C-alpha cells in the first residue's frame, strides 16, 4: 500500500514542478547554501587546528566515553570562571587544592589502618585472613587459588562424607556414583571419597600432573570444569575454595552450573567461609574485598532458585567457627522416586 502512496506523492511532485508550484531554483539554492556553510565550517575548524572537527567525535560515534571533551569543557569553564570571579575564584582554587590534598592524606591513613587490621586479623582468625588476602584486588587468580585451601577436618569432614555418601549413592544412576570435588587441594577428601567406593574426580587450578599417572585430579578451576561437564552426569559435587571468593554474579553462575551438571537425585555440598568472618570482624578491611563468600541463606536461595532442594546446613561449631556447609539435591523425577501411581 505504501508503495502506491509513494508513487502518488512522486506524481504529485512532478505535477507541482511542471505547473511551477515548486520554484525551479529552490532545491539548487538549498544545496548551494549548505555547500557554502559547510566549507565555511570546515575552514573554521581547520583554522582552530581541529582538522577532525572534534577530537572526541570518533569516540562518541563509536559510543566511547569522551574524556577529551570533558577536559576541554573543564578548561573552558575554568577560564570563564577566572574571568568572571577574579580573586574569589583563585581563593576557591586554593581551597579545592587543599581539599584534594586532605583527601589523599585520608586515603593514605585508610590504607595503613587497613594493613594493620589485616595483620591483627591474621592473628585472630587464620581462615578469614586467608580469604581476605586472597580477595585483595590485583591478586593473580592462580595465587588466589593457592591461598585458600579447603580445610575439611573432624566433624565437618564426617558431615560432608555422610552427605555426599548417603544421598549421592542413593540417587546414583550407575555404580559407582560419579563425584567431583572442585578445588580439591592436595586431594585428601578425594582419597576419602574414593575409599568409600565412589568414582571420584578432583579439579584444582594448581594441581600438578601426578607422577604416578593418577589422572583423577586435573588442573582446572571450578567454573571451567563444571562448564565443560556434560549435563546430568554428576551424582555428587563438592564445592570448596571457589565459593570463598566470588565476584558479583558468580554465585548465581556456580549454582546454575551445579544444577545443570547434577544427575537427578545427585547432591551438591558446598563448604565456605562464613561471610561474617570476613565482614563483621573489620568493616574497613572488608570494604577492600571485592571477592567474598556468600551467606548460607543466600546459597540456599540460589540453589533453590535453580531447582535444587536444600537438604541441610552445617552450622559453625567450636572446631570450625568460620566455616559452614550447605547440601542440596537435584530432585529425581517421580518415575525414579518410587511409589508410582496405578
Amino acid at each position, binding site marked *: 500500500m*505504501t508503495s502506491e502512496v*509513494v508513487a502518488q506523492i512522486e506524481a504529485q511532485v512532478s505535477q507541482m514542478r511542471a505547473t511551477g508550484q515548486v520554484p525551479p531554483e*529552490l532545491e539548487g539554492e538549498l544545496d548551494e547554501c549548505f555547500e557554502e556553510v559547510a566549507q565555511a*565550517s*570546515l575552514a573554521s575548524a581547520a583554522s582552530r587546528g581541529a582538522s577532525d572537527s572534534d577530537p572526541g567525535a570518533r569516540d562518541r560515534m563509536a559510543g*566511547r*566515553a569522551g574524556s577529551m571533551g570533558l577536559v576541554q569543557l573543564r578548561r573552558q569553564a575554568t577560564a570563564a570562571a577566572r574571568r568572571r570571579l577574579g580573586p574569589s575564584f583563585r581563593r576557591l582554587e586554593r581551597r579545592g587544592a587543599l581539599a584534594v590534598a586532605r583527601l589523599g592524606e585520608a586515603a593514605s591513613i585508610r590504607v595503613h589502618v587497613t594493613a594493620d587490621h589485616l595483620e591483627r586479623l591474621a592473628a585472630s582468625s587464620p581462615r578469614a585472613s586467608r580469604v581476605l588476602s586472597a580477595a585483595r584486588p590485583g591478586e593473580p587468580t592462580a595465587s588466589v587459588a593457592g591461598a585458600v585451601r579447603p580445610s575439611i577436618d573432624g566433624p565437618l569432614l564426617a558431615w560432608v562424607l555422610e552427605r555426599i555418601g548417603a544421598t549421592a549413592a542413593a540417587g546414583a544412576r550407575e555404580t559407582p556414583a560419579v563425584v567431583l570435588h572442585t578445588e580439591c587441594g592436595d586431594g585428601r577428601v578425594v582419597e576419602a571419597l574414593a575409599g568409600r567406593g565412589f568414582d571420584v574426580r578432583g579439579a584444582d587450578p594448581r594441581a600438578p600432573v601426578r607422577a604416578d599417572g593418577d589422572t583423577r585430579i586435573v588442573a582446572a578451576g571450578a*567454573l571451567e570444569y563444571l562448564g565443560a561437564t*556434560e549435563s546430568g552426569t554428576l551424582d555428587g559435587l563438592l564445592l570448596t575454595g571457589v565459593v570463598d571468593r566470588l565476584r558479583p554474579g558468580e554465585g548465581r553462575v556456580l549454582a546454575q552450573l551445579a544444577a545443570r551438571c547434577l544427575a537427578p537425585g545427585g547432591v551438591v555440598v558446598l563448604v565456605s567461609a562464613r561471610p561474617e568472618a570476613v565482614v563483621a570482624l573489620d568493616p574497613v578491611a572488608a570494604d577492600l574485598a571485592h571477592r567474598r563468600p556468600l551467606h548460607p541463606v543466600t546459597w540456599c536461595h540460589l540453589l533453590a532458585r535453580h531447582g535444587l532442594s536444600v537438604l541441610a546446613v552445617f552450622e559453625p561449631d567450636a572446631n570450625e567457627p568460620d566455616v559452614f556447609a550447605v547440601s542440596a539435591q537435584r530432585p529425581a523425577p517421580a518415575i525414579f522416586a518410587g511409589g508410582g501411581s496405578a
Partner: protein
Amino acid sequence: MKVRPVRIDQVIPSIVERDAVSHHTLEAQRVLHSMGFVSEIYACSMGPGLAGRVHPLSELPRYEPERQWVCYQASIGSPAADAVVSHPGLKLVDYHNISPAELIERWMPQLGAEVRLGRRQLAELAPVVELGFADSEFNRGELAEAGYRNTMVAPLMVDTANFYSPPDPHVVRRLQAARAIGGHDWLFVGQMLPHKAHHDVIKALACSRRIFDPQARLHLVGRESCAAYADALRRFVSALGLTDAVEFVGSISPGELSAYYTSADVLVCCSDHEGFCVPLLEAMHHRLPVVAYGVAAVSETLLDAGIVLPDKSPVLVAAAVQRVLTDHDLRDSLVRAGLRRTRSFTVEGARRAFAQAVEQVLQAV
C-alpha cells in the same frame, strides 16, 4: 564427556550507557549468563557507570581454545579486533554495521580512517570466525560479502527505556505551547554526524515551509558528535532564516525523548546510511508516523510501517510529510502498521534469537 565452553566472553571497541550497541552487548551478557556460561565484557574504553561491569581489553584471559569462546561486537575499526583475531578461542562476530568512510571523511578524516580500518578488520576476521550474526538482513548481506561462511540474523536487543519512559511533563507543556501558533512538528533523532544527513531534513523543512506548511518546526534530538558538522547546520539554519523553526535539542533523558516522540507529528529520516536505526522503532512505538529515505537497512526496519522514499529531494520529502500530515486514513494505517512492526521486535524474542545463534554453534562444533 562432551566439551562445552565454560566462558563466552565479549569484546567491544568501546562501551557507554545510552548506546544501542553497548546495550545490546550488556543484554547479550545476560543471555549468556542465563545459558550457564561465564561471560565478561572487555573493552578498549568504557564510559562512566560501567566500571565493574566491564573490564579493560588488556585483561582478556586466554584459556584453552575449547573452553573459552570470544564474541566480537563489530561497529568500528579498533585494536580490539586484532586482539580477537589473535585469540586462541572459537570466535563469533556480532555485526552492527560500519558506516562507509566516504560519507564521513570529508568532515572527520580520522574517523574516516577508522571506519576504513573497521571494514578491513571485518574481512580479516572472516576466515577465523565460526559464525557471524547481524542485527539486520542488510548487515548479514555485508558479512556474507566480506567472506563469512556462516551467517544469520539475530535482532538487536533494543533498550526499551526509551519506549516505556513516561514523557517529561515540562517538555510536553513547552512543546504544546509552541504549537499555539499553528504548524506541525517534525522530529529527527540521531547523533549529529554527517552521514545522518540532518542538513537534508533541514532542506526538506525549508521546502515545506515555502510550499505547504509555513509554520512547520523541526526538532533535532541527538548528541553533537561532530563539531564542524553541527556548526555547519547552525550556520545553514541561520542562513535560511529558520532559527526559530529548528531546535537543536542535543542528548536528552529517556523521559524527555519520550516527550518529543509523543508531541511530534512525524519522524523524518534522511540518513545516507543506517545499519538498523533504532529511532524508527521508537517512533513507531510512540504512534508517530515515519517518512524516511529508503537506504541501507531503513526499508527492512520499517517494512510497510512508514513512507519509504526512493530518493530524498527536499520537495519530495516535504510532499511526503505533507501527505502523512493531511491524509488521516494513511496516518492511521501507518500508526497501526508501526505498532505491529514494533511488536515483532520484542526484547524476549531478540534474546531467544541470540541464544539460538549460540546454541547453533554449540551444536555445530
